[in-house]
């Protein structure tokens, strides 16, 4: 398949602040590409440039072969953009919002009502179709926002943190919908702060940190870099943790580090490593006070890729902590 999105040396700066620094990647048509990074990493800047909303300071980008700077009006026939902050009209109803987008996308007027109703149905908004959006919950707005991005059946879809603030059920439904779009031939570029999401959805992941791309690979290979599971052993003091690290040096873990009184192991095979590690610690009288087995977080990725802790600890907050209102029913 040819590349649907090609980005070469893309740069965006605001005065002295460089939001995006020499970023290059390409996205094969009909695949999902994930941009992973903390808040302020430059993900949204990249998406806005590709969606012709923002002009880059340097470099170039093409969507289906058309340059986003030189021919933005042509690019706009082929893209859909759903933002991090639901860009829908508060006063209009859900149906009116979709019809407005249909008109502005230059669809033939007689097709617009059916298209709007079809999307309302698909996104579980039929019952709320005639209510003004200001009466919608956060999750409903998000769904309407994504439906708006699909009105003109875009061949390239940009989703900026599409699931931030959605509950697990809605998130799963959205993931399924994204996969269905891709089966239908859509190319999707999405940003996320959640490693799990990028892993679940994306065929390729680029990791962005402070405007720079620090990795671009398949999820499988990226995971091999930082391990698919993290084991954390808590000790009463840093000294015990260090001694435990000494004992385990050369064990089967991919990576081993001491963070104050915590010993952290990264591994592909947690069962094997646990079976190996625990008896050895027991023998040395260094039984940990607590043992945590977890998936790697953004912090772990950053630590593994940059050797630096995540510059913005906020961004690794779990999705459940986002302060979006109301629990949502499932999408259809």
């Amino acid at each position, binding site marked *: 398949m040819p590349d649907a999105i090609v980005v070469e040396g893309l740069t965006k700066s605001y005065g002295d602040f460089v939001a995006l620094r020499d970023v290059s990647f390409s996205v094969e048509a009909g695949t999902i590409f994930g941009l992973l990074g903390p808040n302020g990493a430059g993900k949204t800047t990249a998406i806005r440039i590709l969606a012709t909303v923002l002009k880059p300071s340097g470099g170039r980008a093409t969507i289906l072969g058309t340059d986003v700077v030189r021919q933005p009006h042509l690019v706009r026939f082929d893209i859909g953009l759903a933002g991090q902050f639901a860009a829908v009209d508060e006063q209009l109803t859900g149906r*009116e919002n979709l019809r407005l987008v249909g008109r502005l996308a230059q669809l033939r007027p007689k097709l617009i009502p059916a298209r709007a109703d079809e999307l309302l149905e*698909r996104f579980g908004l039929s019952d709320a179709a005639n209510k003004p959006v200001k009466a919608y919950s956060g999750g409903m707005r998000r769904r309407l926002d994504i439906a708006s991005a699909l009105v003109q059946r875009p061949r390239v879809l940009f989703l900026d943190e599409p699931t931030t603030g959605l509950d697990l059920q809605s998130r799963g439904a959205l993931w399924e919908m994204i996969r269905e779009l891709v089966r239908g031939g859509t190319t999707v570029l999405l940003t996320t702060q959640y490693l799990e999401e990028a892993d679940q959805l994306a065929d390729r992941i680029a990791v962005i940190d402070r405007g720079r791309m620090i990795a671009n690979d398949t999820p499988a290979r990226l995971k091999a870099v930082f391990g698919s599971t993290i084991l954390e052993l808590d000790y009463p003091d840093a000294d015990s943790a260090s001694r435990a690290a000494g004992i385990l040096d050369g064990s089967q873990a991919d990576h081993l580090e001491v963070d104050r009184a915590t010993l952290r192991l990264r591994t592909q095979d947690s069962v094997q490593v646990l079976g190996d590690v625990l008896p050895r610690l027991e023998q040395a009288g260094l039984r940990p006070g607590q043992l945590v087995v977890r998936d790697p977080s953004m912090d772990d990725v950053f630590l593994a890729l940059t050797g630096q802790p995540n510059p913005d600890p906020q961004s690794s907050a779990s999705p459940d902590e986002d302060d979006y209102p109301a629990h949502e029913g499932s999408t259809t």
Partner: protein
Amino acid sequence: MSQPTDTVTAAGSSLVVGVRADERRPRDWLSPVRDTSAIAWRNLIGIRRVPQLMVFTLIQPVIFVLLFTYVFGGAIKGLPPGITYVDYLIPGVFVQTAVFGSIITAVGMATDLKSGIIERFRSLPMSPSAVLVGRSVSDLTRNVFVVILMGIVGFLVGFRYGSGLGKFLLGMLLVLAFGYAMSWIFAMVGIAVKDPETAQAAAFPVLAPLVFASSVFVPVSTMPGWLQAFAEHQPVSLTASAARQLMIGTPAGNDLLWACVWIVGIIAVCAPLAVRLYRRSV
């Protein structure tokens, strides 16, 4: 690209990619007009569903009419001979209504920029200036309704046009044209501040001296000399004086000509500036 795209998978799925060329309108000279009317339609629905906006722009002028007619009116001096204060006041209140109404343009632009819906508009294959022109058109439409309602209030408190219906309507047209020009100024303000509350707060200190240090409510001849110099020549006074000439027949020299010059001048300067500001406002 806008080339025809065949649907890739089974028809009937709502998530099938690609719009066939015949499902889209071809782009022609009417496209910007259609985009503008779509945006204006959307804005007008918004205004209808936010009654505070209507109240703000309607109740306030009504209060002014009542206040000036019945409370201050008796004390107003220097009126042209043979003119009652109500007749003097109402054309001025039309102007005041149209001028304060332009704040809504600033608030509307700022609200849209802040909410992110402009991002969606920018990513759609529509005419970019339709967002701004559509806003100015919807605010003009709103002004038409407001001015008609103010006219009714005016007639209820005793206003009578002294120079025929045709000239009265011409006067209305002048007031609306001035309000339209002011909308372009405040479109720039809204784009610049990007925040509805700030837009509203920024607009009032600019408009208050223009509206109050003018011939809108009182004849400028009673003001101190230094203020008269300003009050006589500023655009709000010129428009009020020209509207009065058209509606009640008071002589106004070249004020009508100057009012028209201001209107054309403001639009010629501010509309392109606003479009430029808007394009850069990302």
